[in-house]
Each structure stands twice: as structure tokens, then as C-alpha cells.
């Protein structure tokens, strides 16, 4: 009865405090669209390549350029944006300024050397130069595409065969995963992390207005209040997750992963983020504090959960063959991994059972800490 009354009250307050609610709900879908646009609206990044062709009238260099320009993914999207220029200084500046990922310089003797080799099977191969910033992962990817195209072209034109063949096989659903697809689970987790603010707001509002005193004087127990608050936030978290899912679907993301499993992991992740939100609110007394200091745990969850940055894996321990890494102490890191398995690799419940148990265990630990801190601070 009291839990239900608290639930209804918190629900109404959340609806009426619409600014934070909108922020929480809209942030992740917005991020999904933003990420999609960043990836050129195609779901895969097109890499910017500047090309200096010193073999001006050479037919082979022209053909190679066309090959590069027409390089497409399996689903027909162009991979490389080729910009032809002549000034090498300008080209290098573009690399330094990250306006381009890769600079290719085709030598003047490219066509003549190749022609000579085809006719006489003799002579030196020309040196095609590839230039880029090693710290830029796009450079490495663009360079790989270029190498692949160049070798194939040379083999084709010279009739040479590489004495080994490569067969490309793809993980997951038997089709190529786009780069965007790999971000989607992280973006879903991000949508759930946003409820850290709404959870914090629900508690801090009571503290700031001192209504927590009214509650503590009444007969409602802190566990009942927290249960109501958590239920509210889980619903909100799942709404955020579903909106993010719809946003991803609307721009072409497809998954045959289990939706109930997605919701289960989502709900558990909500629970863990709520626990972090409770802990956070125990160190903050005002809404201003929440929106400033509260960003600290938010960014920790966002950046250390493998959401966007690839982090070095630091082994902690192994449980029944399941390796636990340092950043797995953040439940959102495990959640990102679990959602990736479910959405992109069609994993079943048994495939992600360890992750589910791990998130549950972490959530309970964080929730317990949150409740203890809350009761200690407010004597409630």
C-alpha cells in the first residue's frame, strides 16, 4: 500500500518535472542519430583519402584510382572518399588536421613500370606511398582497404597469384557487422545510464525540500520508499531503452536477437544504475550539485564501460572460465558486453547467463551500499 502510494507519487513527480525527464529520455536516441550521421548516414564510416597521382597520363594509375573510388561494402556502400589533389604539403596538412585519414602517392613511373613488368616479367615495381597518423584508427582501416585493393589490382593486371588465399568469414548473424552496429549496444547502455540523473533527482528533491523529514517521521520505511523509487526508474529506464531501440531501427539497424532477453538485461542494468544513483545522491544535497557533481559518476559509467573507448583489459579473476576484467566492476561494462552478444551475435540466455548473474550480483552490492549510506545520512 505504502510502496504503491510512493510509486504513484514519484511517478507523478517525474512526469511533472519534465525537464530532467526529457533530458533522460531524449539523450540516447539523439546520440544514436548523431552517431549515425557521424558515420556518414550509412552505418559504416567512409574513410577520407587524399590521392596524389604523379602518373598523370598513366592508364594503370587511372584504373587503380577508379577501383579505389568504386570500392564498396557488401551492401553497396562506398568505402573510400577519394580526393585528388596535387600539392603534397596541402595533403600532409590535411592528415595532420584530421581532414583526411590516408594519403596515397602514386609515383610517376607507376604505369610504365607495370607495363614493363607485364610485357617482360622483369623490372622493379614502383613504390606507392601510404601516409597517415598511426594514432588514428581510421588511417589503419583505410590503409588496409587500400592495400587490399592495390594487391588485387596488381594481381589482376599482372596475372600474378598470391600463393595463399584468404577466406573472409563474419561473426554473428552470418552477415557483415557495420561499425555502427557495434556501437548500438553501447548506445543502449548509455540510454540506461541517463536514469542516474532521474534517480538522483528523485532523492535529492526530497532532501533539498526536506520532505525526506516528513517521510522519516511517517511510517513508511526507507526500503519501501526505495522500492517505489526503483520501480519507477526501471520503467523509465526501459522506456529509454525502447526509444533508443526504435531510433536504431528507424535508421536501418536490424537484429534478430531476443527482445525479452534485451529487456531482461536492460532491467537489470537499470537496477544497477539506480544503485549507483542512490550512492551518488548520498553525497549531494541539491539539484545543482546533482547536475554538476553527478556528471562524475555518469562519465565514469559512460567511458569505463567500453561504451565508446576501447579500454585495455586488465584481468582480475576467472569464474568458471569467465574472465572478469577490472572495468567489469562497473555493471554497465558487463551490460554492454551482454547486449552486444544478444543483439549482434544472436546469443541465447545460456550464452549470457554469466553476464546476467554478474550484473545481478554487482547491482545487489551497489544497492546495499546505497541503502546503508542513505540510512546513515538521513537516519531513515
Amino acid at each position: 500500500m505504502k510502496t504503491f502510494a510512493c510509486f504513484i507519487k514519484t511517478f507523478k513527480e517525474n512526469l511533472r518535472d519534465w525537464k530532467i525527464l526529457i533530458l533522460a529520455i531524449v539523450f540516447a536516441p539523439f546520440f544514436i542519430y548523431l552517431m549515425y550521421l557521424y558515420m556518414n548516414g550509412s552505418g559504416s564510416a567512409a574513410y577520407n583519402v587524399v590521392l596524389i597521382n604523379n602518373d598523370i597520363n598513366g592508364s594503370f594509375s587511372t584504373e587503380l584510382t577508379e577501383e579505389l573510388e568504386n570500392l564498396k561494402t557488401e551492401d553497396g556502400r562506398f568505402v573510400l572518399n577519394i580526393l585528388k589533389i596535387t600539392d603534397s604539403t596541402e595533403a600532409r596538412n590535411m592528415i595532420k588536421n584530421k581532414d583526411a585519414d590516408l594519403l596515397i602517392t602514386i609515383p610517376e613511373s607507376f604505369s610504365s613500370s607495370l607495363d614493363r613488368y607485364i610485357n617482360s616479367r622483369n623490372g622493379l615495381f614502383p613504390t606507392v606511398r601510404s601516409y597517415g597518423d598511426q594514432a588514428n584508427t581510421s588511417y589503419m582501416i583505410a590503409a588496409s582497404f587500400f592495400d587490399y585493393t592495390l594487391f588485387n589490382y596488381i594481381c589482376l593486371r599482372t596475372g600474378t597469384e598470391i600463393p595463399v588465399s584468404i577466406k573472409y568469414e563474419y561473426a554473428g548473424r552470418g552477415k557483415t557487422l557495420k561499425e555502427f552496429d557495434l556501437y548500438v549496444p553501447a548506445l543502449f547502455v548509455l540510454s540506461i545510464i541517463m536514469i542516474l540523473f532521474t534517480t538522483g533527482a528523485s532523492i535529492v528533491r526530497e532532501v533539498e525540500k526536506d520532505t525526506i523529514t516528513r517521510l522519516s517521521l511517517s511510517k513508511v520505511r526507507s526500503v519501501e520508499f526505495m522500492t517505489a523509487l526503483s520501480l519507477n526508474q526501471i520503467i523509465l529506464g526501459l522506456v529509454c531503452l525502447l526509444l533508443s531501440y526504435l531510433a536504431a531501427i528507424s535508421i536501418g539497424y536490424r537484429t534478430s536477437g531476443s527482445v525479452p532477453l534485451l529487456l531482461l538485461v536492460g532491467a537489470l542494468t537499470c537496477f544497477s544504475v539506480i544503485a549507483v544513483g542512490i550512492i551518488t545522491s548520498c553525497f549531494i544535497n541539491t539539484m545543482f550539485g546533482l547536475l554538476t557533481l553527478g556528471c562524475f559518476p555518469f562519465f565514469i559509467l559512460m567511458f569505463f564501460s567500453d561504451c565508446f573507448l576501447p579500454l585495455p583489459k586488465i584481468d582480475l579473476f576467472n569464474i568458471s572460465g569467465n574472465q572478469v576484467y577490472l572495468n567489469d566492476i562497473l555493471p554497465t561494462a558487463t551490460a554492454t558486453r551482454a547486449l552486444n552478444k544478444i543483439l549482434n551475435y544472436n546469443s541465447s540466455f545460456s550464452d549470457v547467463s554469466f553476464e546476467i548473474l554478474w550484473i545481478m550480483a554487482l547491482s545487489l552490492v551497489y544497492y546495499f551500499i546505497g541503502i546503508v549510506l542513505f540510512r546513515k545520512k538521513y537516519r531513515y
Partner: protein
Amino acid sequence: MNWILKADALVKRYGDITAVNDISFEIFRGEIFGFLGPNGAGKTTTIKMMSGLLKPDSGKVLLDNSNSNISIGICPQHIVIWENLTCIEQILFMGKMYNLPPEEIKKKGIELLEALGLTGVKERLARKLSGGMQRRLNIALALIHSPDIVFLDEPQAGLDPQSRLLVREYIRTIKNKTTVVLTTHDMEEAEKLSDRICIIDKGKLLCIGTAGEITTNNGFEDLVEIDIEGDTNKEFLHFINKELIPAFSISDSRITFNSSNPAALVENILKSARENNLKIKSLQMRKKSLEDIFINLTGRSLRE
């Protein structure tokens, strides 16, 4: 009389500051207990300890043994309401938090809203209410569960005269069922409402009793003020000092003193004035007000 709450040697320190220093008193069932003191005297700290919101460093708070289920209501001096709930929503919510049956919540809620003049705005969000309405809602939330004892910490601060009257009358109506502990800086209000008054300052209890008892027990006599036309002369002052009143104060041409029997003195004063060719412009005798007593006890220095 039966006490409902007893403060026994309460002490609370914050670092080097002793906010409440060995305070003891009893609050009787069904009374309105005026709890007075200047800012920073320790009133709110004492109330927090009595309501169980703060643990004393030493001493204890005892509740009436005959009833182990004494319920407490508190109306803090700042407004404590849920801004995004309507008046009726928060009244109903608090009723549920106290495990009241739905019919009782509804009945009591309607009664409170009516009594505190909030019926017309019961569906309005609290943040859209005027300051006075919010303050009245603050009181309503403290009373929804008909507590055995309610602490009203400056409930009338910021209210207009009409609202003050409304609140005062409502407090009177509840006193039979609910013991009221009232803190206020309005001495007249305290005197009008309170059955007994307790004055504290710097964490110490200065006096306790009915307004009459406080006056008598603390030697507060009637106040006499005489305004002389022109300057007083030495002979007259000597006469007053030696023959009549050893302790008096003089400011410009006004002589002020306390006396338990002022009427007897006045005749002699008038006679002496005539003999000294002094003309008395005015002579006033009045009972000392609670404010006079309060200032006498707590001094004139400003508080933080």
C-alpha cells in the same frame, strides 16, 4: 497534569558550540506549549531532539508511558511540501504514509483543507500556490494523522493577518486532541495562544510557566513611565532614589522603573514633583508584556 513528553537534561553540541545545554521540562497533554527564544537560542535543535530527528549528546526524551504509540507531527519553520503534487495529492499521500484508512484520510483531508482555507486550491500544484497558502499546507501536512503532539515551528511566519487569525483559531480547535508545541517570535501571539510558556536562550532554559507565573516568579513588576516637562532636577531625583525607588532608569526626561505596587508610589512622586516645581507631562503604568520579559531575560544584543 499528565505529561506527554519530557525532556530530561538534553544536551547537544556542534563542535565547540553547545546548542542545547542541559534543558529539562515537561509538556502536558492537551496544552499549547509556547517555546520561545531569540534566533540561535536552540529551539529548533531542541524540537528536533524531541521529535526524534536528532540524537542528543546526553539526556533523553521520554514519551508518556501510558501510551506507547504516541504519534508526532512536525511543521518545520521552512516550507516542506512536494512542489509537484497538488494540495489534495500530498494530503492523501501523507495519510497513506501514516497507514490511515482511506475514508479517514479523505475525511481528515477535507477537514484540514477547509479549516486552513485551501479547499479552493486543492487541485493546484503546490509550487503554484502563494507563499501563505504553501505555509498553510505545511501545517496541514503536519496534522493529517491527528498526531498526539505536534511541533509547530514558527507556523505563522510570513502569513498575512487574515491567515494568522485563521491559523491561530485552528490551533485552538485542535488543542484538546493534540498537544501543541509552538515556537514563534511573535510574543503577543504566544501569550494569546499558549497555556504555558518556556523561554530559552543560548541553549539554556531561562523560565517556564504560565504567562502570569513567569511574571510573578521572576520578579517582574509593573512598569511605570513618567515624562517630565523640561529637565529633572537633582533634588527630585534624589527624592525618588532615596525615598521611593532605588533602581530606576532615566533617559532624556523620561523616568522608568518597576514596582509591585506602583499606585502607592505615584502619589508621593507627584507630591515631590510639585515641591520641586516640576510639571509631569504624562504618567503611565502598565503590566509588563511578554516581550518586555523576553527582552529582560534574553537581553538586547542582536543574534546571528
